[in-house]
């Protein structure tokens, strides 16, 4: 067991926690935070696993940097959407689906 492997395993744990949060939480901002936790988990696996095998590897580090930028862009967009949605509807969660047959028009 090396330190990078520990990172990768911690990443797996974070993925599990984030996934649970994303599925279970109702509040949209919390869902978004859960997504970011899961994202961090994925990035940890991405860097930790190759580093355990062949020492510091700049390629996954660069990939993770790209991944972080993409995650930030997505998070920022989601926050803007959520904020506007909250303003327009007064709701902070996606309410339950209209029944699948669609017989309750909005």
């Amino acid at each position: 067991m090396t330190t990078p492997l520990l990172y990768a395993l911690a990443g797996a744990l974070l993925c599990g926690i984030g996934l649970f949060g994303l599925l279970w939480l109702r509040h949209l901002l919390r869902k978004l935070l859960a997504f970011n936790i899961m994202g961090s988990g994925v990035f940890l696996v991405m860097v930790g696993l190759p580093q355990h095998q062949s020492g510091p590897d700049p390629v996954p580090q660069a990939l993770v940097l790209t991944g972080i930028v993409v995650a930030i862009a997505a998070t920022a967009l989601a926050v803007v959407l959520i904020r506007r949605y909250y303003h327009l509807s007064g709701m902070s969660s996606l309410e339950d689906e209209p029944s699948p047959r669609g017989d309750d028009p909005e």
Partner: protein
Amino acid sequence: MMRALQTLVMALACLAFTGVLATSIWTISGNPTPVNLTQLLTENMGRSGVEHPVTAVLLNFRSYDTLLEIGVLVIAGIAGISMAKTASLEDPAMRTSDSLLYALQRWFVPLMLVLAGYLLWAGADRPGGAFQAGAVLAATGVLMRLGGSPMEFLRPGLMLRLGLALGFTVFLLVAVASAIGGDAFLAYPPGMTKALIVVIETVLTLSIAMVLLALFVSAPVNDAEDPEEGAPS
């Protein structure tokens, strides 16, 4: 009752997922990788134009990723400012006369600007680079915004859109310039690699800061609406 059962099922599923994932990571970590990319990277570092391997991967070997990644940022910026329905940045909640905040700003803003400049410059041979510098620059802007600075240049207008597009445009022009000369898309002309990477990093810093700041500032909340298709207006 339903909710509790649901929670239990979800928790068990996520626990199982974690377990499978951890087992898989443990198994994979036992075998060495067949391809050693690090070695290949070290052999080609001399041709990359920069000294830091991460920067070399980001802006030379895998520059297509970075180009598209900046595209993703610009998309988020565009989608964000499309939510702004008026040209006004007035926000009463932002008016403040907190003297502590002013004092803090006077110290921090110049310091953070210097830090951003350093991070950009350090990217060539140490950890740092366009994104880190851009993030610090954006944080400076957020601080100024919280302190009540007007920041007129963030008004949704041509200037803002130019700022959003600047870094991406320069990157794209460099990418296509070599293709016109008959080389591959995104290849740097020999001898100019270093200079071009520095130029790209600098404009990227400005644009990244601009996108992040625009997403923070330019989503004011107001009631202008577009009726949906077919809805009675």
